[in-house]
């Protein structure tokens, strides 16, 4: 079967109900691609996303490879601008066009680590150990320095000896959970990247 489709239509077809399956397997594929080698995105799954850099917030399509079977982890192998997005209309700038290399940076932090006081190196620890130690340190500091009432006798319930700086790259949902939990603990030294 010889179906002539534009690249754009091609994406629409694969997004529309056939996500994850290969057009080639269904018996047809864009002529040019089939003749030479299989189109590298043909066996990928599309995910809609938003560029993490500036606040133009260009629409992205991320392509992952991996057949979704149990224990197979999808890997992002290509990122491009979302042509349906009303602001960027498929385009990306030099920052966003390189975002795949940020995702796969060799400098990603992969495991919880601790640098003990006065030490020169990191030590890998488990999540359980890291969070238990942090929770203990926070509770200890809170219990020692929490101010329940001010001089006038008003309940003020604040804790100002531990500070929290929030990311401007977190989602709204992460931001909400952060502010809800930190305020509940009484933290007032709270600020965000947005300040600067």
């Amino acid at each position, binding site marked *: 079967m010889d179906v002539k489709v534009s690249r754009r239509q091609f994406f629409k077809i694969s997004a529309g109900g056939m996500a994850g399956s290969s057009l080639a397997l269904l018996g047809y594929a864009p002529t040019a691609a089939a003749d030479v080698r299989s189109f590298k995105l043909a066996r990928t799954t599309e995910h809609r996303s938003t560029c993490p850099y500036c606040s133009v*917030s260009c629409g992205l399509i991320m392509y992952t490879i991996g057949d979704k079977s149990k224990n197979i982890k999808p890997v992002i192998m290509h990122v491009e601008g979302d042509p349906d*997005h009303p602001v960027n209309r498929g385009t990306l700038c030099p920052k966003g066009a390189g975002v795949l290399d940020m995702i796969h940076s060799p400098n990603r932090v992969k495991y919880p680590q601790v640098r003990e006081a006065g030490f020169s190196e990191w030590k890998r620890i488990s999540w359980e150990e890291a969070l238990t130690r942090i929770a203990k340190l*926070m509770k200890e500091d809170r219990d020692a320095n929490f101010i329940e009432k001010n001089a006038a006798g008003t309940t003020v319930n604040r804790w*100002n000896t531990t500070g929290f700086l929030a990311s401007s790259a977190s989602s709204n949902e992460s931001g909400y959970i952060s502010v809800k939990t930190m305020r509940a603990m009484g933290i007032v030294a709270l600020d965000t990247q*947005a300040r600067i």
Partner: protein
Amino acid sequence: MTNSWVDIKNTDLVLIMGGNAAEAHPCGFKWVTEAMQTRKAKLIVVDPRFTRSAAVADTYAPIRVGSDIAFLGGVINYLLSIDKIHTEYVKAYTDATFMTKEGYNFDNGFFSGYNAEKRVYDKATWGYEVGKDGFVVVDETMQDPRCVFQQMKKHYARYTPEVVEKVTGTPKASFLKIAEQMGATSAPNKVMTILYALGWTEHSVGSQNIRTMAMIQLLLGNMGRPGGGVNALRGHANVQGITDMCLYSDVLPGYLGAPLDRDTSREEYLKRLTGKPLRPNQMAFTQNFPKWHTSQQKAWWGDAATKDNDFAYDYLPKKDAAYDVLHMFELMHQGKMNGFVCQGFNPLAALPNKKKITAAMSKLKYMVVADPLETETSEFWKNFGPLNDVKPEEIKTTVFRLPTTTFAEETGSFTNSSRTLQWKEKAADAPGEGKPDSEIMARLFVKIREMYKKDGGKAPEPIVNLSWPYQVADAPNPGEIMREFSGRALVDLMSIPDPKKPEEKPTLLVAGGTQLTAFAQLRDDGSTACGNWLYCGSWSPAGNLTARRDNSDPSGLGVFQNWGYSWPANRRILYNRASADPAGKHWDPSRKYLSWNGKAWAGVDVPDMRPNAAPEENVGPFIMNPEGVARLHAIGMAEGPFPEHYEPFETPLGVNPMNTNPKAISNPAARVYKGDMEAFGKAAEFPYAATTYRLTEHQHYWTKHSRSNAIVQPAPFVEIGEDLAKEKGFKNGDMVKVKSNRGEVKAAVVVTKRMKGLNVNGKVVHTVGIPIHWGFKGVTQNGYLANSLTPYVGDANSQTPEYKAFLVNIEKA
């Protein structure tokens, strides 16, 4: 942004100042070139550098760093002196007709009420004169010397074109050409937009830079209209959303003022923040504050927030001081903080005066860094030779580093600078054991909560009673979280009985348990829960509206009502009532946006107005202000109700050409800590103005970890003009040392035609440009952190540091 990215295409004139959209926001900048092609719009760029935005501009003018208010104040004077303003708009939609108080005065750099010892103003003489009826007194003729219009005219009369040239270095002819083009948009059928970014905010007068421009847009009648507005481009993917969630000390989610140490009760707190109309018939929308706040308390503490315990008001921390990031690090530097949690933020690189930041963090007992990348902050204790010359054995801070997901590895929403929430999907797992911030925070919280339940401790109630209804306590689902901050009815919401029709039975409005559609449904009696009123309705009974992908634009004006969800209430242009004249008709028939159809406001957007407010009711378009109109005279500002030019704290002139007052050279109301004032450099030792900036190929301190970005922009450099290079004997590529009074940076020098010495106040001022993107971690070549140089002082209102105007010297390395 008051408007949106795509809306830029509707403009007649674009001003880019305090930003560089072509390089910092390239895909948004395309809407500028679209307007230039299709509407024949003109582009003006005012910048210390001839940027790539300037390269495609119709008009470019250079300006000395830190002198924007002098330029814009000059524009105000120009517009007022030849009456190039949109008078009908100004009279109806601003406070120009309002009378100011009798004692108000401005004299030689100080406004009335200055306290030199505390560096603050007593604002008793600022603001409006209120009559016996409780409403502001107005002068419809705008002739009274005490009305805002005349006070403003008097204030800016000093900003003549000659003075503008003397203070800014912008040639008078270029200034006048730009002022004339801006003035032409005072015609009701012409609109200008302004695009700015950190080039305006990162000054000790940052907020007033923006306010001066807002005043110009009001005088020209360009606010609330398609193709108009004041548009902050903003620099991180979710900087808008995290601001809206208010992860900062001053406010609670949705910009609800946080309770203060001096608020003695909930009643007093609510009273302080609940608005009351200052003119007849005004909406004074903050009248609803108790509904927003009570609903937030219900979202946070659920059944533990009852009428009997003042809806858990005591659980909220009461703030006793500023706790912005500069203050936080000042406290740390004084040894008054023990712990610090740093989520996706790189303060060692991003905050001013690296030496002070290092010293501050070295005094902590513990620090937690949660980040997808190995940041400089997380390794502040490690020796990297001259780039980070510290002794690890002397730094006793225990540092934890936790791996997080990037945007690509988590599901949730980001809010762009057009205020549009857009949902995204997780594509893959993070490498290794990375987790989303929401899960890290949840796990940490649950652990701490269990410790309080088991072992007790100080004030456990706010923690153990925090509403935690998530299906998996350790990992709340982003959908659950969005539904919580969007809001729902806790019980059946019945209609409020109309006292005039006592016979009518209440009807069911929203069934208990249902998601709400709009913040108008929120109540102050504990019957609704909503974590962030501004985002109310983002997950309505119709589902997750932020995930919508209908890109149809029926009006052709770039209004995508069914793409994502814009706060507030899915409104795409703020103050859009002002797109119509006082009678409710379009100012410009070629850009029909919103008008009065005889019964209601209707158009292509959600009206920013009570839908049935007939024009003859005179309900002002600026509904969040109790006066209903926009403020030319604003008492909320720390350093004066009208913006005034003050020199950067490190001034190349040593004087303020606008006054002869030695105490008013720089912002008299800016907060300066002991030690930081002494660390400011003087022009005799550091003769060159300096500014930091970003490059097209890099994003802050992230992309230095990305190979493709490192290939296209691999190594640090500083930029100077040909005239300075000749004077110093530098050739392109020479290694140079740039020094401020706080530190130094070594890098190659790039000599360009883009920067030139400017004649300012009788001397030539050269500028050194310092791109910020390098550090001691990354796949680029390593470099010095640019913020080793910058001064530790912020804007008097926002405390945003003054990165864009300081002093350096430069010599061969």
